[in-house]
């Protein structure tokens, strides 16, 4: 948690809600493992359990951002290891397009991200959470939050 601790208070105040869609298999599995191992992570992270990250598309991401999320991330299974078929790849495709869309509008592209984790290793989920907050704080430092037009 070292990176989180050195975060500016001002920026920490701006990161209140990070919506993380975690898939029911690897994503939620690794979060459970992290919980069993009592690993700590940023309180701003709000986990939403979904069956597969393939369910998450631009509509859900924009709904979250419109309703007050500071950032949105998807955590799915590792590439090639989707428990269904290729849901994580599909959501990655959409998220890449969303990132590009934000860039085209002149915003930072770090408000939307896609990660993977492994159910047996809790540190992968916590590592992803740390990375989300780290990238978001860099983006906010440079350009401000999405609400005040980063």
């Amino acid at each position, binding site marked *: 948690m070292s990176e989180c601790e050195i975060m500016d208070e001002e920026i920490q105040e701006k990161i209140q809600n990070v919506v993380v869609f975690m898939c029911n298999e690897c994503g939620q599995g690794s979060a459970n493992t992290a919980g069993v191992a009592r690993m700590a992570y940023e309180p701003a992270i709000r986990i939403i359990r979904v069956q597969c990250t393939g369910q998450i*598309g*631009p*509509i859900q991401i*924009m709904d979250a951002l*419109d309703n007050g999320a500071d950032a949105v991330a998807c955590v799915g299974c*590792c*590439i*090639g290891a989707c428990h269904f078929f*290729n849901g994580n*790849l*599909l959501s*990655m*495709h*959409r*998220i*890449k*397009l*969303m*990132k*590009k*869309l934000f860039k*085209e*509008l*002149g*915003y930072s*592209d770090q408000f*939307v*991200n*896609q*990660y*993977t*984790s*492994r159910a047996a*290793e809790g540190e*992968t989920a916590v*590592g*992803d959470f740390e*990375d989300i907050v780290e990238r978001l704080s860099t983006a906010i430092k440079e350009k401000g939050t*999405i609400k005040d*037009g980063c």
Partner: protein
Amino acid sequence: MDVKIFQFNGCNKCFNETLLIKLDSHHKVQYIAEPKTWKGEKTEVAVITGYILPSDIEQLEKIKENSAKIIAFGNCTTMGGVFALANQHGYEVSPLKNYITNCLNVNSCLGEIEELNALINGDEPVKLKPLCEVCHRRATCDYLDIVQRQIELDDSETCYNDLGFLCNGFIAKECKEKCINYNTPCRGCKPMVERSGIRMLGMFGTLMGNIEMATEHSEKGATDKLADAEDDVTRSLPDILGNFFRFTLPTSGLPKGRIASSGKLIEDVFTGRLIEELPLITGLLGGTNSISLTLKVIESYEKANQIEISEQAKKYREELLKLEVDLKKSVENEDAKQYKEITEKIRKIAGNMNLSNVFFGGFKSKINENDNFEEYKTHVFEVVEGTYQNGSVEYSIDSDGIIKEIKIKEGKV
């Protein structure tokens, strides 16, 4: 019935189209091209065309107070339209419903007169099918192996999206302009769902399932850097905003753009768009000058890159230019009958009033039954970086075919 038609900002094609009300109705129609000078008098129906800027609020209030029924006519008024692409550069082009919540909407670019007549008379709104139902191409919705920016015109059976050629037809209703009949994919000006651009983006993102994506593992064994990696997915769609939110940017819920503005709204609409989209956009927003503007853009590029044009194509283009002059005259004289005749002639050559059939190197579909289509058929052209100029239009494109700068001198377009 007492009908007043107002033209706000933007191209005046929809305003001109309302001339057709006169043809088969006994309404008392009054045209107000400059709402600022309108004194305000009671009216039964107010039809508003053109996009709305924050500076128009005063006039809108006046119209709201004096009218029993308000109808937004055309895509610019209902959803912001193609001009709203300037919002990418910080403008506040907005649809009428942001200011007048209970207005009736006639969507699509160009607005359809039959629907407007139905709303004025208080009839049931015209029921429309989804576009894919009336399209003669058939979709399989298989994952794409490639995304194409231009296609050769030899396949008329397969869905554009199956060819990897982005078509917004999935989210659109059937319309009169029917770009799809002229080898042009649907631009999505008449959506049947809320937030159509975002939904179409999700749909096309899914269709792109087979497109190669960066998948190397990064340090932590996670994919934290992969979503940022440049790969075929991001490269194949260089202009997402222009492709998916062409008509619906203000209603899509996306935040306001922060790209630096050039100072002119019309130029900001074009900046960032793709070269193959350029004639389509000029056809949409050029108003009464759309034909000459489109041909100027096309000819400058053809001339610089030695794209050969057949005599037949030149003949058709000249004919279009002549029709444009006649069209202007008929609009000036408010002659509805003549207007209808001329637009029918334009539609015959250019496909529709948005000039879907006109393209670099010729035309996209057969104009006359007896013609040899091979003579003026367009082909896939190379994107060449450079600056192109023709009369009052000057634009420069980069190596990806994205328009970096454009100058349109006013009054001469």
